[in-house]
């Protein structure tokens, strides 16, 4: 039912987007697994991993756009939700290493062994069950968002004040996870994963599957976000973004709406993180660093805030640029990236899709 309700509301660009992502989700793994290496159609493992990473970033950007683009909540701490999801998954991957760690300790991860921990901290209990870990990957970011939002929105912390406290949250978490006493591996974080649900993380098929899953997650996230923004609730969100007090006087309890969308978005970010970790093979506190969260904001801005596909595209474009530039012009690439950000804000204030999207596909950017 949701589906058909959506179908009616999709612009051409969005249909194209869905088709593209779905296509990738199917074709890339196929081309990677079935095509012989060296054939024109073959997609290298490196490419699969890279694309997988971008899909996760895209989902993160999407979740950020949901709160920022549609509800005017600029979160400078969305990286925190992403990282928490990642850690939840990372902890599962650590636990499943079992006796294959260098010290062959069945219970304790390696870093605990050589830092001479005696028993497993309670925070690590149950993370050997995939189900539990997957649940936590969504629950923990959700819960954090709920608590933070509950207080912040009720006491009407808005605008830049909200942005800064979200930044404070992610910064505090970064420092906390740096502390080895926290028992999350300190600066080295969690690495050296062996397998996930019995499949080798390094294996080509696992990679392909993870990529496909990431792509599907992106589609799922898109569908959810689209469902929200195109419902009447979506109207309320934009109303809040444009005239918060007015919305109150019509009788909408603004804080509840913000809380709802903030939590949904955090959960999406958490899922993105959980899919990200097994593909890049490491999670460490620098994922919490404020700079990362700001970058995510920039992806959204580049792609076009308030346009879901824009957010996703922005994430992919910026990261593709990064991947290319850091290899092509390693010593000066920051100039290029910096210039890109400046130019986009100056000349494409509504982002790439926001500006061209409407021209090309008659896409209504603010809806």
């Amino acid at each position, binding site marked *: 039912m949701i589906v058909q309700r959506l179908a009616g509301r999709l612009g051409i660009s969005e249909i194209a987007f869905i088709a593209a992502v779905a296509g990738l989700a199917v074709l890339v793994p196929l*081309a*990677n697994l079935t095509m012989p*290496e*060296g054939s*024109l*159609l*073959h*997609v*290298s*493992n*490196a*490419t699969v*991993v*890279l694309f997988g*990473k971008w899909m996760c970033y895209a989902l993160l950007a999407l979740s950020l756009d949901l709160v920022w683009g549609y509800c005017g909540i600029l979160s400078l701490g969305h990286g925190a939700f992403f990282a928490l999801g990642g850690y939840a998954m990372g902890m599962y991957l650590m636990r499943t290493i079992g*006796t*294959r*760690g*260098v*010290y*062959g*300790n069945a219970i304790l991860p*390696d*870093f605990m*062994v*050589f*830092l*001479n921990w005696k028993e497993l901290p309670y925070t690590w209990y149950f993370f050997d069950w995939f189900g539990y870990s997957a649940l936590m990957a969504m629950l923990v970011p959700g819960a954090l968002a709920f608590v933070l939002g509950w207080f912040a929105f009720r006491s009407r912390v808005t605008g830049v004040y909200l942005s800064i406290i979200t930044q404070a949250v992610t910064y505090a978490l970064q*420092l906390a996870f*740096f*502390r*080895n006493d926290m028992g999350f591996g*300190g*600066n*080295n*974080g969690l*690495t*050296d*994963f062996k397998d996930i649900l019995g499949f080798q993380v*390094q294996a080509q098929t696992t990679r392909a599957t993870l990529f496909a899953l990431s792509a599907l997650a992106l589609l799922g996230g898109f569908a959810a976000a689209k469902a929200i923004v195109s419902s009447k609730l979506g109207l309320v969100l934009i109303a809040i973004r444009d005239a918060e007090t007015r919305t109150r006087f019509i009788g909408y309890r603004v804080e509840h709406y913000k809380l709802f969308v903030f939590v949904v978005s955090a959960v999406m970010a958490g899922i993105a993180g959980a899919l990200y970790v097994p593909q*890049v*093979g*490491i999670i*460490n506190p*620098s994922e919490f660093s404020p700079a990362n969260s700001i970058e995510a904001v920039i992806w959204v801005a580049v792609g076009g805030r308030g346009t879901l596909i824009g957010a996703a595209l922005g994430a992919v474009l910026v990261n*593709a640029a*990064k*991947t*290319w530039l*850091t*290899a*092509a012009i*390693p*010593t000066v*690439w*920051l100039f290029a990236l910096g210039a890109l950000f400046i130019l986009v804000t100056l000349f494409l204030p509504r982002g790439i899709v926001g500006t061209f999207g409407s021209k090309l596909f008659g896409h209504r950017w603010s809806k």
Partner: protein
Amino acid sequence: MRFTRRRFLGTTAAVAGMALAAPSIRAQGAPVKVGVLHSLSGTMAISETTLKDVMLMLIEDQNKKGGILGRKLEAAVVDPASNWPLFAEKARELISGQKVAATFGCWTSVSRKSVLPVFEELNSILFYPVQYEGEESSKNVFYTGAAPNQQAIPAVDYLMASEKVQRWVLAGTDYVYPRTTNRILEAYLKLKGVKQEDILINYTPFGHSDWQTIVRQIKAFGSQGKKTAVVSTINGDANVPFYKELGNQGIAAKDIPVVAFSVGEEELAGIDTKPLVGHLAAWNYFMSIDTPENADFIKKWHAFIKNPKRVTNDPMEAHYIGFNMWVKAVEKAGTFDAEAVIDAMVGVSVPNLTGGMSSMMPNHHITKPVLIGEIQGNGQINTVWQTSGLVVGDEWSDYLEGSKDLISDWRKPMSCGNFNVKTGKCGGKA
């Protein structure tokens, strides 16, 4: 551009990363790529950029000598931007994209940890030039920096013997290298009969810039009537403010000497060292070392970097040793094939800059002399003590619970990174 097209269309990803097949698909005489994986931007650029330049210099130098096996070398430089997942991505790109024969790179442990699986999966070679906490031995990594027993323990011995230190402050940045090193030192000191109350351990965050409180703590700890020394595993960036505070609060080396494991000529270049004269550093190389090899190296470096003021430091020597070892091993193996080169590496020995020969051990760590030096007013470090012979890097510390029974030997038939002598099993394969 060529490279991006390959990325996006995934056209020519032939033999993804299988470096062993690489030579076959390369015409003889075509240049061989050598990966340089050091951060040129972000927080670590401060230390790593220099290593990038050294690699360029060494490669240029080798090409002047006619390259290896009649093939010129070509540096493939990328910028992982002090971002750990990006390190992994770049490593993969170097190996399977650019088909490098070997990679020289990484500084922080976390960056090494993040690329390790990639190198193992694609069976390529990484040379890691920085002193580190040990507790690791990979088939695909050659550790040319110091293990704790090649730096920390001799330093402590020296302080005990020649400065009669009885009381110890172990100050470090809160990450794995200081944590592990301090654990090892703590165990070692206790073994030497130092009591718990004579050991103060203190951790600070990265880039900690306000040292007033801690320096005062140290002062207080040192005023209990016993000779006190500080063993500093403070990470590069935080050292400048730390030493500035030391100098300002007037902690002179003759009262409370500070011995540092992460402070070399490069870090000192950022400080006025006059107040620090006499504080110590433990490394395997100092720029002040008076040998013809070193003089020659420094001359080349100044010529290459076009700045006679630039200093040299220990990780640079590590790359110098590692690179020459790789060259030798390739010649020995007669091919660039990673598998063959890895086997050829063990046993290779090349001259280091301190007047000895360093050799690659079966545990993929190398033999080095250990030098203790005192900081001079001109930012140089003068040797005041050095081990009579070379010390073998000990990957699995004998002073840690988990690892004292582990050994590593990559020679066939054992070829195991963490063989447990008690159980007789090779860990990680269970």
